[in-house]
């Protein structure tokens, strides 16, 4: 039997050891990024919990799918068919344009490869850190997801993959204050950078000359500089552009085009060949 007097210090010692360990882990992760390779296993370790927590949501979704009325379903089906028709017509046109583009590029001797691998992924709506703008998705390393992979929605760019597990990964959104995207203005090709502001509906555009040709309402699209995002995906619409007296740069901000907090399905892109190859290599290595 332990007495009251022997219990006191043992608490403090235990706390001390545990705190030292926790603080070490904190700095190892935040300053030195020591966990980047172990993250896959750590995330895979907790992902069952995340799937379990998501079960009620999935259930309510399946139930709500069952209680469509016949009329609503017919209408939906009709709308989808109409949309599909329009899109397939567009696609034929796109194929022709692509061929023409290829032919022109071969004349110019400039080669550009189009890789069209993409994958639909679903957002798992479990809670995440309130101060980081990120989403959890239900695809992971097993599907070939890699860190830095661009993620878009049907409207525009959403972000990039920041953490990978075997069956889940995390998307860092473009509005997170640690995120930046190189962009160009669709109207005139002006090059800029878009930084997250830490607010859902605002992106900062730093280092824009006060005299630059930028207007409210301009669409910013990815410029493919930096080699992470493929070119041409819409990112944001300029919402504010003002000349500040005495300042070298203008005060400019933009609004993201994709509905970052509301989209349920996202698209993963594999824009570059090396990453695809890497995935294939990984799979081959696993076989024996």
């Amino acid at each position, binding site marked *: 039997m332990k007495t009251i007097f022997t219990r006191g210090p043992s608490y403090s010692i235990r*706390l001390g050891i545990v*705190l030292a360990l926790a603080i070490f882990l904190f700095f190892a992760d935040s300053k030195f990024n020591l966990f980047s390779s172990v993250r896959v296993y750590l995330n895979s370790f907790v992902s069952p919990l995340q799937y379990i927590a998501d079960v009620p949501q999935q259930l309510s979704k399946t139930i709500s799918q069952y209680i469509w009325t016949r009329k609503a379903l017919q209408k939906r089906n009709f709308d989808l068919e109409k949309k599909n028709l329009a899109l397939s017509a567009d696609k034929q046109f796109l194929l022709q344009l692509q061929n023409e583009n290829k032919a022109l590029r071969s004349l110019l001797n400039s080669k550009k490869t189009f890789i069209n691998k993409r994958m639909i992924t679903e957002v798992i*709506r479990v809670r995440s850190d309130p101060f980081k703008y990120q989403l959890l998705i239900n695809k992971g390393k097993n599907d070939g997801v890699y860190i830095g992979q661009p993620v878009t929605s049907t409207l525009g760019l959403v972000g990039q993959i920041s953490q990978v597990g075997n069956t889940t990964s995390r998307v860092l959104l473009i509005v997170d204050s640690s995120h930046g995207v190189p962009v160009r203005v669709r109207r005139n090709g002006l090059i800029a950078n878009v930084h997250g502001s830490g607010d859902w509906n605002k992106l900062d555009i730093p280092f824009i000359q006060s005299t630059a040709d930028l207007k409210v309402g301009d669409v910013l699209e990815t410029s493919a500089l930096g080699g992470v995002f493929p070119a041409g995906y819409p990112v944001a619409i300029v919402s504010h552009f003002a000349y500040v007296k005495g300042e070298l740069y203008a005060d400019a901000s933009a609004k993201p085009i994709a509905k970052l907090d509301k989209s349920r399905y996202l698209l993963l892109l594999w824009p570059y060949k090396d990453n695809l190859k890497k995935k294939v290599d990984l799979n081959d290595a696993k076989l024996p």
Partner: protein
Amino acid sequence: MPSFRNYGVIYSSFFIALILSIMPLPLFLTVFRPEWLLMMLLYWTLAMPHKIGSFHAFILGLILDLLLGSTIGMHAISLPVFSYAFAINFQQIRCFSIAKTTIIVGFIVFLNQLFLYVISLSQQEIVFHGYYFLGVFTSMLIWPWFFLFMRAIRLKFNVAEKL
């Protein structure tokens, strides 16, 4: 083996608390989410301070960090401290009325939120919304019922420390 069953009850309650603390909620409710894991930890620390303490708090904090995608160590630093504060004062706190413990729990939840906020602020820029602290009030609102419920569970399964 009774102690094996005791741990079964405790760990499944922690499991449920972890699930509750990441469960998807409708957007307007999500700011009201009480700090389930912290409350569960405080309850068990109060009930069995010699079994559940800093070490369990540390492991649970790590799991929560991974679940939320926070920087590893944030919750693993904060949870052991509050668990320790309860463990060294458990005899006094057990004698307090429920109203008094509710205020203490509210204060601890507030300190925890504040700590997480300050730590995140040191990592990156944050746009602060005041309703971040609404979870404190929900936690306080829920604590008395939570406490009585957990005590009923504990007595039903006869989970107790043998000294």
